[in-house]
């Protein structure tokens, strides 16, 4: 491996950033750990309770429900976004000015701030002033995402697909561009059909890219907060309250910091675990 020249001056460059990160991330994290083992009645009244909150959290049925809801959501988005994104990348142009145009159009949803995405769909889905909602009602469908659970789920799903499919499409597109033309030529010479080309050339060569897409999307969707919160607020009832929102509601809403800290640590461990998996798979994929 390459050894970089050791230079003490370099530490000076890193120092301001280190302090900033320490201030905004590490110290608060340690505070959370501290709170998670205490029962907090007021700013000055804290009682040490050990792993009580963790035990309670892991037995909390509402937490379990939110976790399952979250898993269902993540898998649903993956099941839709992956094939859809792949399909989009297959039909995207490869040459000429249309390439730039297609890339820009595809990137637009990714550039929008997430709370704005939520706001867009919140208004779009309204049956009184929203184009989508009004159109659906005009077609005779009984659509109301504020009252009906299924409608709320579908709205949040469609919003997520709209928002994130372009990422999958762009990843797959770059993977497709990396396939040398000789493979397509050979397939044409062998008389392969379009489906065969997809199955035997494109899909195997996209394997690495698809793994990355899966892991990226799974991780991101597992942490989703802003968009569903803006659209449905977690409702109706609890039907679209996913894990991060559940946690926030508990911590900020009820101001019961102890259990909230415990929940957030459990959540942190989940994400850490997925990051580890992602990192390991990426490394192996990189070597393969």
């Amino acid at each position, binding site marked *: 491996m390459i050894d970089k020249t050791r230079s003490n001056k370099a530490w000076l460059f890193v120092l301001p950033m280190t302090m900033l990160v320490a201030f905004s991330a590490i110290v608060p994290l340690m505070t959370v750990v501290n709170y998670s083992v205490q029962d907090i009645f007021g700013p000055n009244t804290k009682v040490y309770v050990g792993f009580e909150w963790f035990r309670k959290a892991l037995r909390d049925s509402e937490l379990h429900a939110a976790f399952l809801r979250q898993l269902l959501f993540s898998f649903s988005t993956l099941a839709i976004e992956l094939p859809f994104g792949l399909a989009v990348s297959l039909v995207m142009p490869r040459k000429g000015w249309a390439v730039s145009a297609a890339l820009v159009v595809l990137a637009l949803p990714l550039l929008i701030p997430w709370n704005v995405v939520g706001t867009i769909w919140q208004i779009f889905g309204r049956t009184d002033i929203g184009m989508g909602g009004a159109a659906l009602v005009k077609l005779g469908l009984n659509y109301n995402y504020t009252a009906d659970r299924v409608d709320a789920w579908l709205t949040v799903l469609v919003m997520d697909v709209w928002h994130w499919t372009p990422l999958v499409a762009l990843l797959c597109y770059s993977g497709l561009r990396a396939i*040398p033309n*000789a*493979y397509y*030529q*050979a397939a*044409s*010479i*062998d*008389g*392969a*059909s379009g489906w*065969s080309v997809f199955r*035997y*050339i494109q899909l*195997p*060569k996209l394997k690495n890219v698809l793994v990355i897409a899966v892991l990226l999307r799974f991780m991101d969707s597992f942490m989703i907060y802003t968009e569903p919160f803006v659209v449905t607020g977690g409702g109706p009832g609890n039907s679209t309250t996913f894990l991060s929102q559940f946690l926030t509601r508990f911590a900020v809403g009820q101001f019961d910091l102890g259990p909230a800290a415990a929940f957030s640590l459990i959540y942190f461990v989940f994400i850490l675990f997925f990051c580890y998996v992602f990192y390991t798979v990426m490394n192996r994929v990189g070597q393969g």
Partner: protein
Amino acid sequence: MAEIILQGISHSYDEKRGSTAPNLALRDVELRWRDGGAYALLGPSGCGKTTLLGIISGLIQPTRGHVLYGGKDVTMLSSRERNIAQVFQFPVIYDTMTVRQNLAFPLRNRGLATAEIDRRVERIADSLELTAMLPLRATRLTADQKQILSLGRGLVREDVAAILFDEPLTVIDPHRKWLLRRKLKEIHKQFRHTLIYVTHDQTEALTFADEVVVMQTGSVLQRGTPEALFRRPAHTYVGYFIGSPGMNVMPCDVSQDAGGARARVGTHDIALAPHTGAGPAPSGSLELGIRPEHVVVVDGAGDAGAEGSLPVSVITVEDHGRFRIVTGTLAGAGDRRLKIRIGHHGPDRALPIAAGGSIRVRFPPEHICLYRDSKIVESGELAAAEPSP
């Protein structure tokens, strides 16, 4: 299998078909290849050989001209419709399939019966010595085996019109290249397909092909057997490109008189072979070409060998083990370099030659070629009783 004819092929990457264009990758190429022969397209990078192969295979539509397979105009047809096979610079195989499935793939796409597919696959695998590897995943093969597998996919289609090779030995280890060359020769002998091979390596081209087409900047310079290209290069570039090192070319003044033809190089007169063939004998300012292998070093010790010999000042002597390359300048002819290759078997193989010294050489008339504007006008070989190796 069919005769392949190229008529008036010109191509430019800038313009679409039907228009004239300034930047030609290929200029007016006319070639006719008979069925079942092995041909090579040889030339440096950028000479147009890969473009020409693309036009033959159907990957590229030429801006002008026609391609005919067995009399039928296929210029606008795709690769699949032309029924050709191609082996690329790097092995192109289907990673997820086994060797057997790879070989069977073109036949399955044509809807052949399973029994027939198996029969053909096994026959080709046997010829290519891949039988033991049939059940393995294709990715487990070495690079040269993968290239042979690519070739096999073309061979299983028994009615293939031609098999095209685009510098197929590029990724093969140097000491395994000869294995693939031998395999290609065997395959050609057994199946007699038309084979067209593109390369920049003269050894590959001369070993592989019955006939070699030498190209430079979009034009065909010469087309002939390896012997013809070596002994009678039609263009000074062919003389340079074939042979290691390339042909020595020097300006001269040719005159004819009662004593025969003579070329004057600097202050020396070199005897030429008598003129044969129709038309007047060439004379005037021409270029004299002689290959380094053909320059004979004479034993300068005695004056007997010195008659008709030319003095050369030696600049370097490189000993390559089985041959020596002497670089020197012909005295009285300016500082034009002359290269002499002394092989292991010639009469001059043991002569001591040192850098800084001086030797005497002869240019045997039967090995001298004369060029005007880089094109050949006379070859001493035609006059000789029999060509000497």
